[in-house]
């Protein structure tokens, strides 16, 4: 039998004991929870670069490229390690909309390599096509080769150069392409010289007579209007393909006048075959077709929008507004 004051002390100590146990249990629970779900991304490689540090990280089944440890920065390239062919990001899938305009492009230029997902997928799909990758950052090419199994052979070449310069030099050499893919924008910074009317005119001059150009770009800022007006000034009406997540949009333009795509087009034999070919990569042509809209008669930017030129291209400032 304890005296009342001692009883009170024991009770208080007991309550302290219970609280300490609770805290320990809570930490244990959280530790098991996080570890079992694998929420911690592990950085497996850090590549120094002239522009930014490139991080390769793994989280569950995903291996991704990130530009810095800031949580706001989105992943640039991701692959499923168990299914490397399956594409992770919707914008990469949406770029394949171009195949609805040209089923078999033979000369493809990709500006902005990232981890090389687009290049690898296209090479698997179109093994006879010549693919040229242009990437400004040599460190990015190294990461793509070492951690993302970038395929390079007689059909797939990769060059470390600024996209604008590559296109200018290609014009001097009179090279031409069936499909140019502009994927040089990351979430942080836009190379402003790749958004101007002058640049698009150069890229257009590099396209074959029925050539097409796809650009992966942004949604949700003032830049949308300026970019739309600039593309329209060079190519006329274009296809707008906005991702359902409302972050990216693909601009699809052609050297020829574009016409609306009829939904029954996918019933044609060659597109039926393409649909089957694309499915293992997680690309559903029908879904893409549903969100493709031609700008004819439905310009969603003001008609008097200023056009971006080499003289006037405050793209990074406009993206913040």
């Amino acid at each position: 039998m304890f005296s009342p004051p001692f009883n009170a002390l024991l009770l208080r100590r007991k309550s302290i004991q219970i609280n300490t146990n609770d805290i320990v249990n809570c930490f244990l629970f959280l530790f098991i929870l996080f570890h079992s779900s694998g929420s911690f991304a592990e950085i497996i490689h850090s590549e120094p670069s002239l522009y930014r540090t490139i991080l390769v990280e793994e989280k569950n089944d995903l291996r991704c490229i990130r530009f810095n440890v800031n949580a706001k920065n989105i992943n640039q390239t991701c692959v499923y390690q168990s299914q490397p062919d399956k594409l992770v990001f919707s914008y990469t899938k949406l770029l394949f909309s171009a195949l609805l305009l040209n089923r078999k492009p033979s000369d493809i230029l990709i500006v902005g390599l990232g981890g090389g997902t687009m290049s690898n997928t296209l090479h698997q799909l179109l093994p006879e096509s010549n693919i040229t990758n242009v990437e400004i950052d040599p460190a990015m090419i190294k990461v793509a080769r070492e951690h993302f199994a970038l395929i390079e052979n007689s059909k797939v070449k990769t060059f470390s150069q600024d996209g604008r310069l590559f296109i200018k030099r290609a014009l001097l050499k009179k090279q031409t392409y069936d499909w140019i893919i502009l994927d040089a924008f990351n979430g942080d910074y836009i190379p402003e010289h790749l958004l101007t009317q002058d640049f698009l005119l150069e890229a257009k001059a590099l396209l074959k007579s029925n050539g097409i150009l796809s650009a992966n770009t942004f949604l949700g800022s003032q830049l949308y209007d300026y970019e739309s007006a600039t593309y329209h000034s060079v190519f006329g009406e274009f296809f707008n393909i906005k991702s359902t997540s409302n972050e990216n949009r693909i601009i699809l333009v052609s050297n020829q006048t574009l016409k609306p795509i009829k939904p029954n087009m996918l019933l044609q034999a060659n597109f039926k075959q393409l649909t089957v070919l694309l499915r293992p990569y997680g690309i559903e042509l029908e879904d893409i077709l549903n969100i493709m809209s031609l700008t004819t008669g439905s310009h969603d930017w003001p008609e008097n929008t200023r056009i971006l030129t080499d003289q006037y291209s405050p793209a990074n400032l406009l993206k913040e507004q």
Partner: protein
Amino acid sequence: MIMPSDNTLVYALSFSSGFSIMGIELLGGRILAPYFGSSIHIWGSIITVFMLSLSIGYLIGGKLSTLSSSLKYLAYIFLLAGTFVLPIVLFSDPIMQTIFIHVEDTRYGSLLAASCLFLIPTLILGMISPYAVRLLVNDTNESGKVAGSLYFVSTLGSALGTIITSFYLVLYFEVNQIILSFSIILLSLGTFALLFYGLRQVPHLKKAKHV
């Protein structure tokens, strides 16, 4: 009309030259990008050329101040600077096109282009600070203080030239419009200094006292 004092005018001229130098340097990246890209070495080329031009400009400006020191010559330097900024607007495309075709390595191409476009105007603008120090110093005991004040005003001009150009001017104006405005400002200030101060009969400068 209330006219600013000689010293105020010299400070105002130094502020404007600092403003113009950094405004032009910042736009240099934009001017070179279509031909030489936006790689880090483009900025390396631009900054090298500006630093080199300024260093030579300081040397020449300092030497010039020992030969003659009057607001008239400072006004001439401004008129010269305003004139040599104009080729950036008028000839940058043909100059860069020629270099782009003949020099394949973008490092040396951009260095050469930056030299052709920016070396002479920046060198002339660099002459202003040491020459202005000579105009302001009346007493050698005060020379450090005067130089400090002048560098303060001129570097403040550079800071404002950088932020105003990159935050606002590029949002509303074309590159050539901004460069042309810098040229007009330099020419106008040079003309103003020459007409209202430089051509006066009375020499306004005293020989610096040695203690």
